């Protein structure tokens, strides 16, 4: 450990022997450590509460709160803080007790300064290593969780597509049977059939239910479609403007105003326009459904040299916290039956994944939702 690194160490010195403590305080300060001092266990804990320390050098024998007790307090509240015990001459029993209670090590008084400094350095290094290990473990856990989620979505998608395919055949039979019946009812020979209107009405219901089911199965099958993307140079702002035309009427019906804006240095990017259009339609349609009469929706394009960001924000009802995890799962929908297939965001996320992008959600119930899609800029000349 280089000498200049010593000034990263936040050290707390706790000892009731004033002369001894003051001397150490000065010498450690001279070597660059950030040192604070306390003359009692209670005083030390108060200082730690104000600001944590990396290493505590702690005298065992003190009036009031003694070293062992102080150590237990410290380890209970700041488990990451390392503690070096100072024991009286030839009382190694205290030192062993201290290590058992979680101290890093102990030194017997009288101590040699350089020896103490070495111990402090080692304690600090251990703390740093532990910290790194913890971060690594947390990172690994996060990645694993993401992978589980991704895999689960992928297998759910495959399963859903399989089910959709199998359902299409019986659906086709129902469709043709209903169509045949309605054709029969239009025949002259059946003009005087009793309760003909009831039959017509029921058949009409069958047909419209088949149409609804068909939208679902086709959308599901579309989500796993292995269609090759067609890349082109795309001006996202223009594409968004053009796409908004498609949903314009639906928004106008609810008197929702859609604003479009851009920031950064928007430049055409190399991407599959159809996939981006699909993303935009899904997000804006959701926004329209979530937003009440006279609400506002903003579609914003932000660009920097590495990536382009599409942000669709609404002043809608927002997504409750407990639903945040579920919104990308297939068949999750909070829309009334028949209005949402529960596949919009599922499909959107699959497209975004395929494009190498990410999607983020921010939402507050009663305030609104903001969906952010970040897409990497690809350069046709640079890409492999």
């Amino acid at each position, binding site marked *: 450990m280089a000498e200049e690194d010593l000034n990263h160490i936040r050290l707390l010195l706790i000892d009731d022997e004033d002369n001894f403590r003051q001397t150490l305080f000065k010498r450690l300060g001279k070597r660059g450590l950030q040192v604070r001092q306390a003359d009692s266990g209670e005083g030390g804990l108060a200082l730690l509460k104000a600001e944590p320390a990396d290493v505590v050098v702690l005298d065992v024998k003190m009036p009031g709160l003694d070293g062992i007790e102080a150590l237990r307090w410290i380890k209970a509240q700041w488990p990451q803080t390392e503690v070096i015990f100072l024991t009286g001459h030839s009382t190694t029993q205290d030192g062993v007790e201290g290590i058992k209670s979680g101290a890093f090590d102990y030194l017997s008084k009288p101590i040699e300064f350089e020896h103490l400094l070495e111990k402090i350095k080692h304690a600090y290094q251990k703390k740093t290593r532990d910290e790194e290990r913890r971060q690594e473990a947390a990172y690994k856990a996060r990645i694993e969780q993401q992978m589980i989620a991704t895999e689960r979505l992928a297998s759910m998608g495959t399963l859903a597509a399989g089910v959709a395919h199998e359902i299409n055949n019986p659906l*086709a039979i129902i469709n043709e049977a209903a169509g*045949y019946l309605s054709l029969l009812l239009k025949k002259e020979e059946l003009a005087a059939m009793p309760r003909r209107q009831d039959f017509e009405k029921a058949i009409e219901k069958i047909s419209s239910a088949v149409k609804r089911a068909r939208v679902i199965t086709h959308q*599901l099958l579309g989500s796993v479609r*292995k269609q090759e993307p067609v890349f082109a140079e795309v001006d996202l702002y223009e594409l968004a403007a053009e796409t908004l035309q498609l949903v314009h009427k639906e928004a106008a019906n609810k008197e929702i105003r859609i604003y479009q804006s851009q920031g950064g240095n928007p430049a055409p990017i190399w991407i599959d326009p159809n996939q981006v259009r699909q993303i935009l339609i899904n997000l804006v349609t959701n926004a329209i459904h979530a937003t009440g009469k006279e609400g506002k929706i903003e579609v914003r394009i932000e660009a920097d040299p590495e990536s382009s960001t599409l942000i669709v924000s609404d002043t809608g009802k927002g997504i409750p916290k407990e639903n945040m995890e579920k919104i990308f799962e297939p068949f999750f929908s909070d829309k009334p039956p028949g209005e949402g297939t529960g596949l919009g965001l599922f499909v959107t996320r699959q497209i975004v994944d395929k494009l190498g992008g990410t999607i983020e959600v921010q939402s507050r119930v009663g305030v609104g939702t903001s969906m952010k899609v970040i897409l990497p800029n690809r350069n046709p000349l640079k890409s492999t």
Partner: protein
Amino acid sequence: MIEIPTRILLVDDEKDFVEMLSMRLTESGEQVTVAYSGQECLEKLARTEVDVVILDIKMPGMDGIQTLREIKGMFPLVEVILLTGHGTTETAVKGMKLGAFDYLLKPADFENLSAKLQGAKKKKDEQDERIRQAEARLLLRKGGNI
């Protein structure tokens, strides 16, 4: 105006589907023959005059694409509309490259199917007409030579 019925051969291994769609098409004034496999389709084509084949892609044994190849090899003038229960339109597009007139996703919208049937029939009629004219020219030339 009396509409001339389209002579349709409907091929699908799903018997209930074949039955219902053929009843519906017949009721709409078309002339429908049915087959439940690719093999049966080819046998029926050899015996029956057909304008358009409605052909399911996914069938056990000889599948729709194989059947399509055979049809186009043996009866090149017959138009084929592919039916797919699967979202992968790739196979359907491949089928069009092999000479299919068009494709439809199951369950198909009847108006859509009718429109495609009309289109296929029109294409076949025009081709038949061109052949007739060519044959007439051939006859004329032959006659002139005599």
